[in-house]
């Protein structure tokens, strides 16, 4: 069973990595929209973003590091903006 799984992972490695990352980001979306847990959603998205960055960066190469930094910084900006917007919305309601 484990051998079959490893073969599956080897044959479809890129596709399956994308699926796993999509599942992580989607679970963050569910946490944010359905359960209204913005903090947990931001943590989930941060984990997914960090994993995506690590995947881009390794094996280490200058171009890969550059692209990884751009992706990570861009993602962090979006997460921080979303987090701050959520907090300001809460304060306005109060």
């Amino acid at each position: 069973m484990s051998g079959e799984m490893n073969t599956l992972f080897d044959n479809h490695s890129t596709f399956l990595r994308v699926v796993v990352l999509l599942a992580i980001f989607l679970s963050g979306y569910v946490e944010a929209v359905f359960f209204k847990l913005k903090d947990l959603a931001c943590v989930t998205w941060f984990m997914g973003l960090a994993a995506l960055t690590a995947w881009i960066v390794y094996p280490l190469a200058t171009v890969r590091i550059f692209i990884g930094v751009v992706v990570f910084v861009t993602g962090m900006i979006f997460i921080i903006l979303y987090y701050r917007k959520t907090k300001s919305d809460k304060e306005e309601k109060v």
Partner: protein
Amino acid sequence: MIKIEEYSLNMGTFFELEKGKTTDSGFEFFIDVSLDSNNGVFRRYHVGNNPVNFVDPWGLCAENNKQQCIQNFLQQNYGNFVANTLVPQFSVISLYTNFASYVKGSAISLSVKGLLVGLPGLASKIATTTGKNLAAYPGMATASANALEAGAFWGTTTATAGSAIAVGLTGASSFATTAHAYAIWACRNVSD
């Protein structure tokens, strides 16, 4: 006379033999043989009859490649749990280096979230909606209030569990990723 020392990696036993004597250990697989030039003792390290699951658990082999070096480094510095479970499953670098274990870690995270956040969150939604609907009917004010109170309780439970999971997940993943990155850096001179 040549002495042979045998080390069993899966049973944790040690015994010494003299050349020419037979062994009743029944072990088949040896992962390393070395000669201690100081006292002329041969050392044989074997992995019992299960070489797949007992791959050099004590780090006795030479570091043949980067992955083995990283594994040895993590085991020696942080112990078996971190090396075999925490880092492969919760380090974000594992998405690239150890995908199968990363999938397992992600599945565990999602399951824990589903159990501790999803179920109480769902209960909160159902109770709150029920309470709001009951309020529209005359004579159901008490039932409505009770349902809304239950919804508020499960809502608080969901939020608390969510915060706890966020802290735990961040802590575990940060530690695992840092340890993994440190091990990769320590093994930077070992070839793939």
